[in-house]
């Protein structure tokens, strides 16, 4: 094989391999997201470690002080044992705290923060006034009395785009009920 052939082949290969990286629409998506939701989960380790039992909640749903409190009680994590080894613990804590609601520009993170006073350290997302108020018109039978939902902690039972950090009304589908309009 001649040199030019080899070199050309390498260049063409490199082009094919990098196409998906260069032409992604991440920028557009991020702009839309900031104006609508909370930051989507970007840490593979957090996703792996924390979504075995429940949805990987966006760190933008609670302030850093809340994440710190949650992470210090993992031996009894809402009744379950969720202990982590030291290295994983450090990595996940850092991810949660740097992307927390008080460190985020996303619209709903800011609203969550505005609803809290400085000395509030909610241990649950559903305890933040913004999230509580948003759900107070929904009758109990659609949440607690709904076998496919059970609890407000089960965001993605109704918010079909919750895993992407999106919670707008047109993404809502309550199991056994359907769309929800305010």
């Amino acid at each position: 094989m001649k040199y030019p052939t080899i070199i050309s082949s390498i260049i063409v290969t490199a082009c094919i391999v990098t196409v998906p990286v260069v032409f992604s629409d991440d920028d557009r998506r991020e702009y839309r997201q900031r104006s609508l939701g909370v930051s989507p989960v970007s840490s593979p380790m957090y996703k792996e470690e924390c979504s075995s039992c429940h949805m990987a909640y966006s760190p933008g749903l609670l302030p850093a002080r809340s994440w710190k409190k949650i992470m210090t009680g993992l031996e009894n994590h809402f009744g379950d044992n969720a202990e982590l080894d030291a290295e994983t613990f450090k990595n996940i804590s850092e991810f949660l705290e740097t992307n927390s609601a008080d460190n985020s520009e996303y619209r709903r993170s800011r609203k969550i923060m505005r609803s809290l006073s400085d000395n509030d350290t909610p241990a649950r997302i559903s305890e933040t006034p913004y999230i509580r108020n948003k759900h107070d018109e929904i009758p109990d039978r659609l949440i607690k009395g709904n076998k496919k939902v059970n609890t407000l902690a089960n965001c993605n039972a109704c918010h079909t785009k919750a895993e992407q950090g999106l919670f707008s009304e047109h993404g809502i589908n309550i199991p056994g009920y359907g769309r929800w309009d305010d």
Partner: protein
Amino acid sequence: MKILLISFITTFLIMQTSFVRAEDNAINILEKSYQDQGAKSGNAQSGEKLWNKTFSGKAPFTERSCKSCHTENLKNNGEHIRTGKALKPLAPSINSVSLSKAKKIKKWFKRNCKWTTGKECSAQDKADILAFIKQQ
């Protein structure tokens, strides 16, 4: 034409190598470590008994066993008893990811033994349960 052909073949090869699975020796590593801690080699029947044994715990889950979340048949999907989240089957014959990482097995033995039985499992318990799951 020649250039394109070579490029496509190279691309294909690059893609393939990234999907090649690491050698599967998680089970061997753990079996050896249990034996180093004094356990005999795992007994699947004892493991099955332990799998089905019920332990008492705090309300609201006063009766706890492996079955609470993973069901009696390891080939089925499980369901997290508190959150309702679907869990993939533990049987390696159905789910090839199951038992493939030593670190993950250790983590879940630690957490789930504590939650289910109230304390950590002994090396022998773990060897037995591993022997039971591996057969599924």
